[in-house]
């Protein structure tokens, strides 16, 4: 019993009881099924009631039947209830323990699972890693294979192209061969035909030469027989020709060689002089080196100058020259490189800058002068002169030509005028002559006739005719005068105004109307004669001529010519 009470005390833990011992009890409640605890201080004789109520509460909260009923009776407990309660509690406890065991088992299981899962996950991670690496490796391989494929495709393309080219070559060669074959076949056929023709042909035309007389050789010599001597001579001549050719070539090469040698020597001397002149600028330690080299250079120089001729033919000397040049060149190169790093090129730069400035100034002045020339001329004369200066020569020539043309024209005009005048004069004279003839005939006739009153034909007529012809001439020349006023005329009639007489006078003078009735018939006959003489069917034109104040020179020409 004390044990159970102890246990009860242990179990009941409520807030109403003293907490420290209860806490103790709750903490030690777990391994309860193993241990049997010693007495607890839950229930004492003093707090039995409270304990009872507390335990009742607890039990009822656990869902069990209350062990203590408030019946107000004595502190006698229902033993059956208590035992039942205790049995229930023990069952509960056992159940709890069992569930705890199960849970522990499960926990173990789950932890085992967890471990297992962890293991598998690490394993899978490793596998994943491995497969990733494999994948990259495969990708790399694929890329390389792609490259290879591309290069192989390129090769294939090249090969195809080459094959194509070779095929083209083959095709062209084949066509060439075919062409040649056809040509040969054609020739062969022609040959066969010719052969047939020759076999059939009875009379064969022989070869022959037909020369009037033999002509001498071109060089005038007699032709020689073919003998061994001539053959030998030919051979000798051939070799002579070849040898002379080789000789000339060798001479040329020698000359070239000598020149090149000279150039190399000169180059070497220049390089040596350049290097030696730079010596003072060099620093101390370098000077020593160059000094040592300078000695050898001097030695070489002495050697070279004395044995120049030998050098041309001696292989060793040639090599020495080229080697020494190479050496000098290397030195010069290094020297130049050194110079570049130094600041000795500053003065060079300054000099160049100065030069540039000078050039710029020069260009500026030039520009200014050019501007001056182009923009404003100094004075009008020169401007007018310069304005067409490019064409001056041509213009002068043109002026000259115009002048000559003008002169020629004046000459021509003058001549034409002279000609017209001469023609007019001729016409006058002819007319006068005709007149005289007519008068003379008249005279004769009149003399012959018995009539005493033979009228002497008035000389005035011819005079008037002359006058009229003069006026006519003046009239014809007047238009010309009008046209060419500046040119002088040498006609007796002055003035540029056309000198037209009255129509009646004209008609009269032209013997178209009778002057007096007595002379009518004669006049008529004369008139007819004269008209026959004068007017060759151009009478109306003439009249028109006189009616118009203007006339063309061509017309006058026509008239003059008709006269």
């Amino acid at each position, binding site marked *: 019993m004390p044990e159970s009470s102890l246990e009860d005390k242990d179990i009941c833990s409520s807030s109403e009881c003293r907490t420290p011992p209860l806490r103790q009890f709750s903490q030690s409640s777990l391994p309860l099924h193993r241990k049997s605890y010693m007495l607890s201080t839950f229930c004492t004789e003093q707090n039995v009631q409270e304990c009872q109520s507390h335990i009742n509460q607890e039990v009822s909260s656990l869902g069990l039947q209350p062990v203590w009923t408030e019946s107000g009776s004595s502190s006698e407990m229902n033993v059956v209830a208590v035992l039942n309660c205790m049995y229930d509690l023990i069952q509960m406890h056992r159940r709890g323990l069992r569930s705890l065991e199960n849970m522990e088992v499960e926990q173990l299981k789950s932890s085992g699972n967890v471990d297992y899962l962890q293991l598998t996950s690490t394993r899978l991670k490793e596998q994943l890693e491995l497969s990733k690496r494999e994948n990259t490796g495969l990708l790399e391989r694929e890329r390389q294979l792609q490259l290879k494929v591309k290069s192989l495709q390129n090769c294939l393309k090249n090969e195809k192209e080459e094959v194509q080219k070779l095929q083209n070559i083959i095709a062209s060669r084949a066509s*060439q061969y075919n062409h040649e074959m056809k040509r040969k076949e054609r020739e062969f056929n022609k040959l066969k035909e010719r052969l047939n023709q020759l076999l059939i042909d009875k009379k064969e*035309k022989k070869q022959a030469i037909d020369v009037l007389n033999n002509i001498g050789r071109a060089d005038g010599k007699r032709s020689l027989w073919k003998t061994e001597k001539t053959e030998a001579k030919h051979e000798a001549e051939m070799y002579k020709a070849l040898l002379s050719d080789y000789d000339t070539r060798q001479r040329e090469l020698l000359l070239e060689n000598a020149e090149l040698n000279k150039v190399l020597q000169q180059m070497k001397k220049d390089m040596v002089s350049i290097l030696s002149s730079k010596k003072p600028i060099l620093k101390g330690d370098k000077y020593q080196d160059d000094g040592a080299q300078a000695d050898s250079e001097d030695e070489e120089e002495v050697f070279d100058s004395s044995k120049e001729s030998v050098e041309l033919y001696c292989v060793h000397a040639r090599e020495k020259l080229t080697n020494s040049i190479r050496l000098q060149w290397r030195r010069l190169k290094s020297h130049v490189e050194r110079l570049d790093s130094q600041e000795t090129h500053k003065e060079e730069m300054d000099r160049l800058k100065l030069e540039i400035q000078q050039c710029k100034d020069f260009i500026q002045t030039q520009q200014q002068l050019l501007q001056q020339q182009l923009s404003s001329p100094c004075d009008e004369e020169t401007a007018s002169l310069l304005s067409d200066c490019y064409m001056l020569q041509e213009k002068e020539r043109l002026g000259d030509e115009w002048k000559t043309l003008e002169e020629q024209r004046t000459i021509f005009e003058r001549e034409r005028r002279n000609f017209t005048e001469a023609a007019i004069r001729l016409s006058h004279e002819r007319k006068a002559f005709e007149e005289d003839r007519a008068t003379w005939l008249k005279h004769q006739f009149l003399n012959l006739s018995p009539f005493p009153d033979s009228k002497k034909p008035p000389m005035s007529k011819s005079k008037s005719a002359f006058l009229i012809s003069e006026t006519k001439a003046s009239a014809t020349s007047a238009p010309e005068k009008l046209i060419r006023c500046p040119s002088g005329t040498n006609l007796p009639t002055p003035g540029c105004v056309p000198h037209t007489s009255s129509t009646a006078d004209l008609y009269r003078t032209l013997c178209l109307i009778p002057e007096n009735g007595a002379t009518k018939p004669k006049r008529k006959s004369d008139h007819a004669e004269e008209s026959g003489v004068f007017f060759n069917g151009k009478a109306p034109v003439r009249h028109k001529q006189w009616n118009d104040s203007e006339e063309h020179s061509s017309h006058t020409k026509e008239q003059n010519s008709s006269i």
Partner: protein
Amino acid sequence: MNFSEVFKQSNQLCKVSPDGKYLATCVQYRLVVRDMSTLQILQLYTCLDQISHMDWSSDSLFILCAMYKRGLVQVWSLEQPDWHCKIDEGSIGLLSSRWSPDGRHILNTTEFHLRITVWSLCTKAVSYIKYPKACQKGIDFSRDGCYMALAERRDCKDYVSVFVCDDWHLLRHFETETQDLGGLEWSPNGCVLAVWDSCLEYKVLLYSLDGRLLSTYSAYEWSLGVKTVTWSPSSQFLAIGSYDEKVRVLNHITWKKITQFEHPATINNTKAVVYKEVERRPAVGADDLSLHNITIGTTLFNTQSKYEICPPPVQIPVVKPDPDRANPKIGVSTLAFSSDSRYLATKNDNMASVVWVWDMQNMSLEAVLEQCSAVRCFQWDPRRPRLALCTGNSKLYLWSPAGCVSVEVPTEGGFQVQSLNWHCSGDSLILLVSKYHLLGTKCVQKHYFKTL
């Protein structure tokens, strides 16, 4: 520039005598000899048939007229007009005829290249040379006239025979390492003989006068090879034009290639001057179409042309040849050195309207002349570096280092310059022109003589 009148000629046979004093033209079966300075007719000879070939002897005293159809050759003397000579080849036929360098022997190549007959005018003697080869250039005389090289083919092998022209003595006879000999040429100094293979193989062999092989040159294999070979007048260079549109120049000391000239379709070279011919057709207004103008015809149909300088890059027109045909029109076919060996003029067949001028001193391109139509003929002045060329129209073109000029040849319209030849003095040019009558069916060729 003065132009003379047009004289008739046929078959493009019009040659100046080697001494430059006389001009011989053939019209059908007549041979007309004129004085060069006055162009008066000095002699007139009549041959038995239409003349196929005419040539002067080296001393300008004799002229040979060959009539291939009849197999006849007639020789005329300038000094003695009544002297006559007739060579009849008989039934064996005649393929070509030429003078020997001494002017006293005539070499006739019979039909089918059966043999070469050497006729002597001094002794009436005959000699025969067997197995001549039928190739591009099978015979060549050295410049001094001493030796003759002849290509032969026996038993499917090529040989070269060197004869002494004095008495036709066979000096050397050697086999060449060619598959199919295409041609041979003496160097101007007469000491080296260049021999090249046919176009199926690129091979150029150089033989010394005594028959030793000096050197072999082969630029590439398999493709079509050499098209043309030329020596420079100084014998220093040997220029080889090939089907790959390049010119390779060998030097006479090592016989190795010293440079290579290419003919690209785009010129980027800034140092070369590119001259392009530009044609200007005169604008014809309505009032110009008077009868006067049409009958004259010059203003309507003749186009003015001048040269313009094109800045690089310049595109050259290229004509692709038919790949199935033999002897394709591609590659450098014409090479010419100027007389001082300073310049080399080349023409590439698939750029037929372009002439390239190369400077041999700098080994670079000097000038490019692009014409409006295909270049027919070009030739250097024998005295100075001046190039004359013609393209089959009525113009003459001249290039010199100072510049380029296009000259209209004054004709009555319709004349086309077919070829040209310089006079040996370099003062005049002989232009061979042709004119096609619009109504007639025959083409009348007239030769045109021009003085510079």
